[in-house]
């Protein structure tokens, strides 16, 4: 499923809303999570999982094609940990 399909699905279930409003809703949710992670905050969504920020140290990397070494600055990366309920739902009826 891609974002436009998600928006359409929610719009179908809420005939009183315009499609562009549903689009705003989905974007507001994703923007809020993005802003939280940019601040270094954690986002915890029970039943789904939690987003947190991890810091990667600066390192000496290299271009895999040319083999040239380049300095890679330290950076923040998002990390998602699947919640317990989500993990259980993924495996419901999956294990034989």
């Amino acid at each position, binding site marked *: 499923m891609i974002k436009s399909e998600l928006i359409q699905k929610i719009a179908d279930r*809420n005939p009183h809303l315009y499609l562009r409003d549903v689009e705003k809703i989905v974007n507001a949710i994703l923007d809020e999570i*993005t802003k939280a992670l940019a*601040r270094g905050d954690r986002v915890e969504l029970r039943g789904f*999982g939690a987003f*947190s920020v991890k810091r990667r140290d600066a390192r000496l990397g290299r271009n895999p094609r040319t083999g040239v070494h380049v300095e890679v600055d330290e950076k923040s990366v998002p990390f998602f940990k699947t919640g317990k309920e989500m993990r259980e739902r993924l495996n419901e009826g999956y294990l034989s």
Partner: protein
Amino acid sequence: MKKMDEPSVARAKASPVAPLQTVTRVDLAEAVYRRVGLSRKESAVLVEMVLSEVIDRLAVGETVKLSSFGSFIVRDKGERIGRNPKTGVEVPIMQRRVLVFKPSNVLKAHMNGEDIPEDDS
């Protein structure tokens, strides 16, 4: 053959950052309330509906791609022999499904104060 004596490339260590605050559904509903102009109650219902839809799709093994944000991918893991790190006892780990999140370049750029690339999905 690959030379083994080349300078080793340092692997970046990822350490968790102590979070300042924790954002929850309540904050997402508040953002929807401010930006869309629905009631607070309906904003909360809509947030729940969006999350449920994503969760339901993932639960049936479908990938969910949210452009400018990232992709949630369900991976099948085969059975393997694990080991209790404390006791060293071998235990079988059954085949299972796991969820991985692959952040988009747009999200990563936001987190590092970089220029925001065009859309990547």
